[in-house]
C-alpha cells in the first residue's frame, strides 16, 4: 500500500509524430511503429499543453520522430510559452529551414537541440540511412543566425566512438552552448541492433577520458552532458528519477506513457488524452501506479541502500532482458540476471554485425 504522497510532474515529453525522414538504427521509438500511425490533431495538443500546465509541468520537450513534420509545431510552442512552460525542441534538423526556425524563434522556443549522427559526412549519412549531413550543417548556420542557444546531440556507439576527437572538434567549431554525448540506451530499435551498436570497454574508456578532459576545458563556456552506457556500469541508472515521479510522455496517438519506451512492455495498458485528462491519468491511472515509489520493489532492491537513487533501474530494460518488467534491472551486478548483460558485453568484442534501419513496420 503506497503511503507516500505523489508529486506533480515537472516535464512533459511531447512526441508529436513517429514519422521521420531519417532511419537511425538506435531510434527510441517503438519497433512496431506502423501500429501507431494515428496522430493527435492540433486542438487536442493545445488542450494537452493546458492540462500539463495546470498539472504543474514546467518544461515541454517537443520531439518525435521528426517534430518539424508537424506544421502546427510553432503554434504548440507559442501556446506552451503563453502558459509559461519552458520549451525545448529535439530535431534531426533536415527540415529546419530558415523560415521554420524563424517561426519557432518568434513563437518563443527556449532551446534547440540538433542531432548529428557522426562528424564525418559519409558516416552520418550511412547511419541515418539517408543523405542528411549537409542539411544538418545548414540548419546549424540558420540557428546561429537566429541567435538560438543550440545543443549539439550526438548518440554514441561502436561505429562513432573512435571518432570522439572529431566529435569534440565539431562541438568546438560550432561553439554551441551545450553538447550532449549520449550513449545508446538499449531499448527499442537499439535493442534489436544491440550486437551491431554496443561498443567495447576499451573504446568506451578511451572516449570517456577525452570527453572528461573536454568538459573541464570548456567549463563556464559550454555545458557538457555525458550520458553513460548503463551496460558498463555496476549499478543501474535512476531511470526517469523513478516511474511516475517527474516525467510523462504523450505519444503521437495520445497514449500517455510513464516513459517513452514503455510500449516495450506488452502487459501494460496506457490511458489516452482523447478520453481522459492528464491530471486523472497522472494521479490515478494504474500504469502510473504500477512501479511508482519503492513499495513495489523486488529483492535485492528492497533492502538496497540505493533504492531511492535508482528505483530498481529501467523497467523497459528489465522486461527486454528477462521478460519480466518487475525484476531488478539486470545491469545491476546484484541482479540474479546480470549474466545476460555480461554476455552482451562479451559479444561486443566480436566483429561488428549488420544493423537494420528503422522502418515503418507493424
Amino acid at each position: 500500500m503506497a503511503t507516500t504522497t505523489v508529486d506533480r510532474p515537472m516535464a512533459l515529453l511531447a512526441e508529436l509524430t513517429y514519422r521521420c525522414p531519417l532511419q537511425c538504427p538506435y531510434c527510441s521509438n517503438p519497433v512496431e511503429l506502423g501500429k501507431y500511425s494515428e496522430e493527435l490533431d492540433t486542438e487536442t495538443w493545445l488542450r494537452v499543453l493546458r492540462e500539463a500546465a495546470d498539472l504543474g509541468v514546467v518544461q515541454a520537450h517537443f520531439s518525435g520522430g521528426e517534430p518539424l513534420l508537424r506544421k502546427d509545431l510553432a503554434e504548440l510552442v507559442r501556446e506552451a510559452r503563453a502558459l509559461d512552460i519552458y520549451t525545448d525542441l529535439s530535431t534531426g534538423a533536415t527540415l529546419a529551414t530558415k523560415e521554420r526556425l524563424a517561426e519557432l524563434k518568434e513563437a518563443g522556443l527556449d532551446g534547440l537541440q540538433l542531432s548529428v549522427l557522426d562528424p564525418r559526412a559519409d558516416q552520418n549519412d550511412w547511419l541515418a540511412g539517408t543523405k542528411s549531413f549537409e542539411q544538418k550543417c545548414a540548419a546549424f548556420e540558420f540557428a546561429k543566425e537566429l541567435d538560438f542557444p543550440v545543443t549539439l546531440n550526438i548518440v554514441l556507439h561502436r561505429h562513432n566512438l573512435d571518432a570522439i576527437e572529431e566529435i569534440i572538434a565539431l562541438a568546438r567549431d560550432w561553439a554551441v552552448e551545450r553538447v550532449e554525448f549520449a550513449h545508446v540506451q538499449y531499448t527499442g530499435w537499439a535493442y534489436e541492433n544491440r550486437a551491431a551498436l554496443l561498443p567495447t570497454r576499451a573504446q568506451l574508456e578511451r572516449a570517456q577520458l577525452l570527453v572528461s578532459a573536454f568538459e573541464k576545458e570548456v567549463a563556464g563556456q559550454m555545458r557538457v552532458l555525458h550520458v553513460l552506457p548503463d551496460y558498463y556500469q555496476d549499478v543501474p541508472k535512476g531511470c526517469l528519477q523513478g516511474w511516475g515521479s517527474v516525467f510523462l510522455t504523450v505519444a503521437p496517438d495520445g497514449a500517455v506513457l510513464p516513459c517513452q519506451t514503455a510500449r516495450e512492455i506488452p502487459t501494460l495498458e496506457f490511458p489516452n488524452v482523447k478520453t481522459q485528462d492528464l491530471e486523472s491519468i497522472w494521479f490515478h491511472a494504474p500504469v502510473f501506479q504500477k512501479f511508482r515509489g519503492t513499495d513495489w520493489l523486488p529483492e535485492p532492491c528492497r533492502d538496497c541502500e540505493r533504492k531511492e537513487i535508482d528505483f530498481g533501474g529501467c523497467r523497459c530494460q528489465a522486461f527486454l532482458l528477462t521478460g519480466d518488467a518487475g525484476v531488478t534491472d539486470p545491469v545491476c551486478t546484484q541482479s540474479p540476471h546480470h549474466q545476460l548483460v555480461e554476455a552482451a558485453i562479451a559479444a561486443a568484442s566480436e566483429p561488428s554485425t549488420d544493423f537494420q534501419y528503422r522502418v515503418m513496420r507493424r
Partner: protein
Amino acid sequence: MESAKPVTHPILARFARYRWDKIREQHQVVFPEGVLVVNDSSAEILALMDGRSEDGIVEALEDKHGAPEIREDVQEFLKILFLKGLLANGNNHSR
C-alpha cells in the same frame, strides 16, 4: 589550450530561464535537463544579472538592504550556477 575565461558580468546561460512556479510557489531556473529551485535572496540576485558586473550586483543589493556578507552570498550563488553550467558572461564583446 586556453582555459575558461573568468565570468566578470554574470548572466544566466542563454538556454536557461527564470520562472516563478505559481503551483509550487517557488522560484525556478529551468534548463533543458532540469530545474534548479532557488530561494528568495537568490532570486533577487538573478533579477540583477542583466549584464552588469558582479560588483554592480553587490552594490545594488547593499543599497537596498545594507546588510553585511552580501558579497559572499552573491559569490556562493554564482558558484552554484557555474558548477551547474548555468552561468555565462554578459560582457562578451571581446570574444
